[in-house]
């Protein structure tokens, strides 16, 4: 593994999200990698393409009462309820560590109103050490707003515009899969100025305890993540990549380099590793290594040759 130290900035792995160059296409997904520090004993953080931190709101949030997580078949439901330290403590306590990592930091933001998002973007503008914003308009856990932002193209566009106006870094908008046609939302946020689109957030699900006859989550419903949702994520990434021109970041059930490469073939410029971090805290770095090995083995000049390179019989190519 140490031989990779030299390779870490392998130019063949570099990808572009707006004005931002990532040294490789592997990011960690918001809410699954803490504030990165939690993983420092497992991952050479600077070798990742980027780190997306836990969603930040204007005020600190305590989140939902327990139980907050439950395992399902090849997946898990979470109803964390967006517990976070709030933007002020984030800047004071987390940014100093993060900005020393030498890895692009994406700050995931969430609010209850368009104005919340605007104020968050404005507060984070100019703060050193932030490479990009990821706008979470898709979290299903908060009753106020949350889900609605992600399912109404006009509101999604309004949030995007508000954030873009304030922000001095690229803005990626993270979409919800719980919609009839995800390309409509994707096109709306693209038109509103998004520099990239990440998807998918979790599918809304539920689990019931037969013994107690109660929901297994205190919040009743929660977000489904993990390998179970990968086929849905791959399909949506494929659809959106065909429908927009901005880069797409693929998320959902990725736990190996093969998974990541499949998303790239489907049209993703980069990927995020989520739930897999819980099972294998080295997953993100191992995926970087696996992609590097594949690029080598296939003698690709650049990973970009793979983006959207899926061959569909009958569609030529």
């Amino acid at each position: 593994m140490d031989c990779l130290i030299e390779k870490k900035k392998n130019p063949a792995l570099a990808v572009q999200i707006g004005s931002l160059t990532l040294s490789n296409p592997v990011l960690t997904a918001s809410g699954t990698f803490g504030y990165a520090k939690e993983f420092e004993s497992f991952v050479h953080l600077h070798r990742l393409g980027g780190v997306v931190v836990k969603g930040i709101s204007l005020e600190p949030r305590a989140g939902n009462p327990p139980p907050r997580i439950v395992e399902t078949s090849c997946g898990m439901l979470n109803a964390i309820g967006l517990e976070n330290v709030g933007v002020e403590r984030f800047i004071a306590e987390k940014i100093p560590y993060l900005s020393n990592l030498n890895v692009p930091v994406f700050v995931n933001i969430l609010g209850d109103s368009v104005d919340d998002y605007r104020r968050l973007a404005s507060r984070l503008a100019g703060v050193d050490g932030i490479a990009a914003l990821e706008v979470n308009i898709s979290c299903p856990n908060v009753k106020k707003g949350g889900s609605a932002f992600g399912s109404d193209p006009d509101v999604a566009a309004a949030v995007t515009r508000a954030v873009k106006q304030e922000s001095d870094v690229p803005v990626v908008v993270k979409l919800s899969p719980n919609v009839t046609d995800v390309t409509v939302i994707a096109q709306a946020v693209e038109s509103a100025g998004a520099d990239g689109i990440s998807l998918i957030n979790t599918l809304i699900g539920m689990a019931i305890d037969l013994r107690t006859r109660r929901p297994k989550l205190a919040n009743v419903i929660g977000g489904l993540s993990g390998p179970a949702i990968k086929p849905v994520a791959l399909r949506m990434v494929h659809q959106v990549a065909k429908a927009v021109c901005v880069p797409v970041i693929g998320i959902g059930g990725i736990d190996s380099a093969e998974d990541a490469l499949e998303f790239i073939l489907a049209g993703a410029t980069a990927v995020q590793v989520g739930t897999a971090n819980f099972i294998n805290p080295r997953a993100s770095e191992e995926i970087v290594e696996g992609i590097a090995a594949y690029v080598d083995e296939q003698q690709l000049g650049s990973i970009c040759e793979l983006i959207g390179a899926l061959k569909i019989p009958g569609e030529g190519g």
Partner: protein
Amino acid sequence: MSRIQEKVQLIRSERLTDDNCRLTLASQSIAEAAVPGQFVMIQTASGHDPLLRRPFSIHQTRNDATFQIVFKIIGRGTSLLAHCREGEELSVLGPLGQGYRLQPDVPAILVGGGMGIAPLLFLARRLMEQQVLQAPPQVLLGARNADELLSFLNEFQALGVRVLTATDDGSHGHSGLVTDELKKLNPLSESVIYCCGPKPMMAAVATICRERALACQVSVETAMACGMGACLGCTVPLQDGSYGHACSDGPVFDAERILWTV
């Protein structure tokens, strides 16, 4: 913090009772780093079902660079683990969490119930090693029946600690709850009670300690996804209205910090 993710060899698999197992796992780094009350997360299947690792307290570490866990077979994960063959490798993440804060200079009372007995052996051994000036810890163990106790009793006794037992069916020691035994004791006010067991038992011990103004540390169990502070899933409601996280703030908490809702 020296957390390790390792492929670890299963050296020995013992069936202690019908549904209780003890695994001995070879890992110098985990055995050396672990303190009592910490836990490991173990992957139970090679595929994605069950998806998440399972948390287990460290039962004890051994000089030969191994450590042990003891568990009850309750679902798919534990039954897969119980069927692992000696010689197989398991992916282990650990040691994790905040263990007991050892206070070697004051009298110690250890109260364990059910599977909660297992990690107390590690604690008792460390206390015996460090607690040179004090009387040996008083250990109170509760279980459903003698069977569940006997696997551990010798090992506690071999340490030289004083052991009292209670069983639901009266087949060993006091017939009834281990908290009955605790109530009968008259500990010095500076004593520390170290506790691990089912939630109702720990809540009862916490109440007794609060009434008598005794310091009490408990090891809590919650659902866990990551075991390392990343998922924020392992919430523990605290007295001050905030939430703690069992895997990173705990699993051992001062009993008085916890909002007990049984």
